[in-house]
């Protein structure tokens, strides 16, 4: 298994939103790759993201901080970031810290699309 993988556009949301899949762990080591990918994508006009995190095995404050920065940045531009299906371990960490009230979480793709307003 690769420690970290970011796959774009599978399955794609057409031009309504960008579908991404995040696999492995998002820590201080891998977060820079994630952030620069997202920076490029937003610069190219991306505003609505459905981020499949079901295969994300671990997240630390570095990763949470990146998601936080993204969320605030996108909301400022009338965009949105939705996290799809965090696993139990990641969910519990986010929940205990209070981030489940800040991030938008969806459990199905349809629910996620509704949250993105598409």
């Amino acid at each position, binding site marked *: 298994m690769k*420690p970290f993988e970011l796959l774009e556009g599978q399955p794609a949301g057409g031009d309504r939103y960008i579908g991404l899949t995040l696999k492995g*762990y998002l*820590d*201080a*080591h891998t977060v820079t790759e994630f952030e620069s990918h997202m920076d490029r994508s937003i610069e190219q006009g991306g505003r609505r993201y459905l981020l499949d995190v079901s295969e994300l095995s*671990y997240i*630390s*404050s*570095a990763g*949470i*901080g990146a998601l*936080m*920065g993204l969320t605030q940045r996108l909301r400022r531009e009338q965009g949105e970031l939705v996290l799809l299906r965090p696993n139990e*371990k990641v969910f*519990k*960490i986010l929940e*205990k*810290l*209070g*981030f489940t009230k*800040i991030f938008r979480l969806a459990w199905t793709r349809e629910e996620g699309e509704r949250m993105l307003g598409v």
Partner: protein
Amino acid sequence: MECTERQIAALDLVCSPRTEVLNLIRNVVTTVSREAGFGPDDTSQIEISVDEACTNVIRHAYTGYPKGADDPGQVALRVQICPMADRMAITVIDQGRRTSCEAFRGIASLEEYIAQPQAHHGLGSYIISRFMDKVEYHSSPETGTVLVMVKYRRSTEETAP
């Protein structure tokens, strides 16, 4: 190692202060925590706390530490893991740039974190204080910076909100 209590094993990891080592440290800590009888929730909280402490050492204590240099004997991030009868103690030690106790404290609440305008800071220390039962931080030129974190084993896995 600073494990004076009765115990059957103690681990000492000496690492280069590079983010590459975080996954190894997490895996080792997780292994020991499970073996010591901690459940998945507690293990996951220990894992992220140790990661945060080590990330701080790499990012703050050793800022500017050259990426290519690889001699943990000289510039080291040290993690000591002591599983004990009723708890696990993890000590993270560095010989890098020291900071004040206050700076280390990070944010006091999540609200404070969200209110930050741009780059978000202080979450690492907040996580450690939320998830570990006891946190001690001291720093001196002789000992370096020493962060001791203790988590007690609960009989059942319950976690306060």
